[in-house]
Structures are given as structure tokens and as C-alpha cells.
């Protein structure tokens, strides 16, 4: 167990700057998810932590040691990959014991110790009955357990997981998420888990690190990211469904601020008006929670005409996507509607919980009075 600290970590691949200065503190024993779209640098960061890539600049500390110059085996980490990377010529026992035989490690283990460790890790992962099976005979979930067992068998200070459940089918994914989290709680090992799936990150991460273009966009617990996204990118990326981000124009009539949304002019309410104080005649981004967007009637006030772009069932709710000036707006309804793509609908927006973003920095505008 150990705290992990990154200071100014940079990594470049030819012309591509994959990591552009990462500062991050991961508390001892935390389960942290690195989340972002492909190309954001999350996997590169994990590989730098593992020692599979050498950083160009910056420091990586695991506990009290600087490890950025150390070989992977000397870093005291456990690693499990998306594709398991099990040794196909060995049985489950052989795969679990493999890291204990590795000759370059400082600590050597006698046969009795190896046997003890294999049986305790097998008990932990409930794979005692599989020890003598060849790994090719295992199901996806079983292989994943063996890969986790192998990563944990040396009691590493840090467990690194690269998309460990993404490729499993929906039901197994749900089961493995529960198992992973309970396992981590039991062993208490600081865990860093890379995923592109925001629901997975929310389900598992004590902390979620959102990355974009080689930089950290925001670090926080799931609820914080959903309620108080730091940027419009975070707002549009996290949540089920995520907030809808609209580009709106601003217009001032006497003392009143109006939002120009598509063909509509809407009154944003007191809170948003205050947030947008000081912005004139320009476009700003506004994020709305899905619950604050609903279907309305054309003769209601404060409505926006829009066209259906997609409609799909999410459980018992119908999710409707409309496009407004090119940005997709998501809303959910319990109504049983037979919609077709291209249908005209009227949407109603409630701006009470809306977030607004600084057009220059993209960062969330906060009112001075909270």
C-alpha cells in the first residue's frame, strides 16, 4: 500500500505530446479511475506508472520512492491487462505463481511460500477449484480473476488495471465491477484503473481523473463531477445521461438578459443571469441536466422548437436526442411516444441548475455567492 504522486509528468511520441504535464496525488488505498476518450493519454499514463514507458520529464513517486528511473519489476506494482495476457502453456497455478519465480526480483520465494501464496490468492478470488486447469479452458470472467490474482500475488504497493472489464458482456461486466471493488476493499491496495466508460468509472472510482488531450481536466468523486463539472467537456462526458451542452447567444434588452437558443429567445432566470453578468453579444456554452429538459407544447412559454435526431429505449424510459445549432440535446421521458427521426418537437428548458462556461477558458463560471 502506498500513496502515488505524479509531478509534471510528460511523454512525447514523435510529434505527438501524449502527456503534457500531469500533476496528481493518489491517496494510499484509494481506487482511482483514469477516464477519457481514446487518445487522451490515460493508457500512456498507466504505462508510465508501470515502467513500460519511460517519462520524458517529471517525477513518479510510489510511497517514499521515486520510481520513474526504475525497471518495471523494481517498482512493486501489479499489472492486469484488458486481454488478460495469461501464459497459455501454463495452468492456473503456474500463471498465479509466475511472478514469484521471476529471477530479477530481490525477494526470492521458497516452494512452501509459493504454495501458500497461491492458495491464499486463489481463495481470495474464489478460483481454488480451477488451479490445475489450463487457462485456455477458462471463461472470460475466470481468466480475468486469474489475471487479477497474478497481479496481486506479490502484494504490490499499487495495482494497475487497463480496461479490465470493458470487453465482457453486459451481465458479466456488472458482476466483475462488483467483484473488483469488493476485492480492492478487502486487500486495500491502491488501485489505478484505466477506462473509457464513464459509468464504469463512476461505479468503481473513489476518485475519477478525467483526462483530455494529455492533460487532467478534473479530479473528483463521481457525484462532484456530475454536480459541479469544472469544464464543459466534463459536463458533456459524465453522467447518465450526461448534461446537454448548448451553445447560446446572449442578448440584452434594457436590463434583461435573453438567451438565443435556435429560433427561441429565453429568459435564463436570476441565477444564470448573475453568472453571465459581464458577457455581451457573444456565444457561451451552457450545460443542462437531462432532468431539466422536457417535452413541451408549442404554445407554452420558454420553449424551443427542435427536430428529433435519435430516439432509443433506456430501460423503461425513452431517450430523445434533438439537435440545436449542431449540439445534441438529450432528454428522457416516461411517455410512450411513437417518434420518427426528423419529427418536430418542442422542448422546454429549466435553467435553475444550469452551468455556464467561460468562453475563453471553457471553465465553469462560479458565482461569488455560493
Amino acid at each position, binding site marked *: 500500500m502506498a500513496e502515488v504522486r505524479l509531478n509534471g509528468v510528460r511523454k512525447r511520441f514523435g510529434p505527438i505530446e501524449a502527456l503534457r504535464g500531469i500533476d496528481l496525488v493518489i491517496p494510499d488505498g484509494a481506487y482511482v479511475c483514469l477516464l477519457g476518450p481514446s487518445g487522451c493519454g490515460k493508457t500512456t499514463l498507466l504505462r508510465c506508472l508501470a515502467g513500460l514507458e519511460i517519462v520524458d520529464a517529471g517525477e513518479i513517486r510510489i510511497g517514499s520512492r521515486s520510481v520513474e528511473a526504475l525497471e518495471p519489476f523494481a517498482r512493486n506494482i501489479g499489472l492486469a491487462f484488458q486481454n488478460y495476457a495469461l501464459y497459455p502453456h501454463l495452468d492456473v497455478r503456474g500463471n498465479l505463481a509466475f511472478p514469484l519465480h521471476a529471477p530479477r526480483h530481490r525477494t526470492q520465494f521458497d516452494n512452501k511460500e509459493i504454495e501458500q501464496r497461491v492458495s491464499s490468492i486463489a481463495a481470495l478470488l474464489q478460483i481454488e477449484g480451477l488451479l490445475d486447469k489450463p487457462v485456455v479452458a477458462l471463461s472470460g470472467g475466470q481468466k480475468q480473476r486469474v489475471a487479477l490474482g497474478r497481479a496481486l500475488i506479490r502484494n504490490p504497493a499499487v495495482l494497475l488495471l487497463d480496461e479490465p472489464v470493458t470487453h465482457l458482456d*453486459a451481465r458479466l461486466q*456488472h458482476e466483475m465491477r462488483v467483484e473488483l471493488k469488493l476485492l480492492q476493499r478487502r486487500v486495500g491496495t491502491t488501485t489505478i484503473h484505466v477506462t473509457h466508460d464513464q459509468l464504469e468509472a463512476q461505479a468503481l472510482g473513489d476518485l475519477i481523473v478525467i483526462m483530455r488531450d494529455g492533460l487532467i481536466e478534473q479530479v473528483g468523486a463521481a457525484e462532484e463531477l*456530475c454536480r459541479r463539472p469544472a469544464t464543459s467537456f466534463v459536463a458533456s462526458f459524465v453522467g447518465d445521461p450526461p448534461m446537454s451542452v448548448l451553445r447560446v447567444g446572449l442578448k440584452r434588452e434594457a436590463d434583461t438578459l435573453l438567451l438565443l437558443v435556435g429560433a427561441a429567445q429565453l429568459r435564463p432566470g436570476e441565477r444564470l443571469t448573475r453568472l453571465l453578468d459581464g458577457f455581451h453579444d457573444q456565444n457561451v456554452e451552457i450545460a443542462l441536466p*437531462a432532468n431539466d429538459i422536457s417535452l413541451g407544447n408549442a404554445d407554452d412559454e420558454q420553449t424551443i422548437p427542435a427536430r428529433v*435526431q435519435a430516439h*432509443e*429505449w433506456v430501460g*423503461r424510459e425513452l431517450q430523445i436526442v434533438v439537435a440545436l445549432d449542431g449540439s445534441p440535446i438529450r432528454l428522457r421521458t416516461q411517455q410512450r411516444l411513437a417518434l420518427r427521426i426528423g419529427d418536430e418537437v418542442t422542448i422546454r428548458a429549466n435553467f435553475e441548475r444550469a452551468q455556464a462556461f467561460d468562453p475563453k477558458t471553457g471553465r465553469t463560471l462560479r458565482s461569488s455567492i455560493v
Partner: protein
Amino acid sequence: MGRRPSRLSGGEKQRVGIGRALVREPAMFLMDEPLGHLEAYLRVELRAEIRRLQERLGITTIYVTHDQEEAAAIADRIVVMSAGRLQQIGSFLDLFDRPVNRFVAEFVGEPPMVFLPVDRTGVDSIAVKGIQIPVSEPLRAALRATKDSELVLGVRPNDISLVTPAAGHLNGKVILVQPQGDHAIVVLRTPAGTVTVIVPSDQRPEAGATVGLTFAGEGLHLFDSAAKSLLYNREESSG
């Protein structure tokens, strides 16, 4: 248009593939996991595009997928298959609310339906681990119509509510709370096994808490020893 396919992105290649299949204006369009290998965000984008195209052209389309979310998003009707047999045909809501057997009930919906073994305590009453479960009239009628003693209750995680624990409720201990935006998935250990419940975010319990479970009467499903639904197996789905 002048570019070689090798120079195209995944999404572009898939569009070319669909275009080539459409160019002869076929009477029927068959698609085999067309989006399976693409990245999540591209899949969501392209499935809306396929649906848009299909609605515009009106060509009957049969689309093979293993992904229930994709099926729900794209299809008017879904055909669930298992082991070479057709299990059920219907809209997503038919499959979700009126599954004809345990396979469909378990396969459709995320997180999956919770199954609890039940004991019969009378002609038309049931209990889970000694706790009497209130059942609706249709379920009571279905119970009266069968002598089967190995019944399994099925209930969707969103049809279970958490209440203050009390005698007469199935009680459980919260072992994990997984936030998911406006709701949370709560995993509980109960005398009847592990139970998954979906609750609104602002009503989620703390891990370690003991809570009581109640079931929405109209959300209950009952399966016989052959895994057939006692409620929806007789009638065919409306699709």
C-alpha cells in the same frame, strides 16, 4: 470519394460498407454486427445514422447484434435467440416488462433481473426465506393454475425499494453502492442471496447499512421449474 479504403477511419469504412450494400436498392438489408468492433462513441453515433437511413429509405432491415443496448436503440422489433431457438419477439418494452422465460428476463435489462427462489405457502401465496411476498391478482391466478413447487421470483432492480428494516420484510446489508449519475446501483447481501437495487442518487444508503426490501407488485415475475414465465408465456407478445 477518390480515397482508398485503407486511408479511411473506422466510421468512414463502415459508411462505405453500408453505402455499397444500399446502392442496388435491395428489398431487404441484412447487417451482421456492423458496429461491433468500433469504439463506444462511434457506435452510438453510427447506430443513430443507420436508424435514420432506415427510416428514410423504409427498407426492411435485419440486424444481428449481441449488444442489447444497441438492439433497443435501433430496432422496432427484437428477436431474442438462444441455442438455435427463437425465444421471444417483441419491442424492447415487451421483452423488458413481459419476458416469456428466464433466459429473456435475464438477458434483457441492465443490471440484470434479480432471481429469488420462493416457497409456496398456499395455493396462491409465496414466501422468500419465510418472508411472505404480496402478489398481484394476475400472479395469484397464475399460481393457482400450476402445481409446480420449484418456482423462482424475478424482479427488476428498479422495481425494488429500500425501506427501514423490519420484521416481515426481507432485510439485507448494503455491501456496495455504485453511483451512476442520477441513480445508484446498490448491491445487498440478503438471506436469499445477493440482490441488486437501483435507487435515485439522493436516496442511496451508506455501505454497511441494514435496509429492508419491498417489491413493486406489478413488477414481479414468476418462473416455473422449466424456466418459463407463469405470467407471460401463454399469450404471444404483441409485436
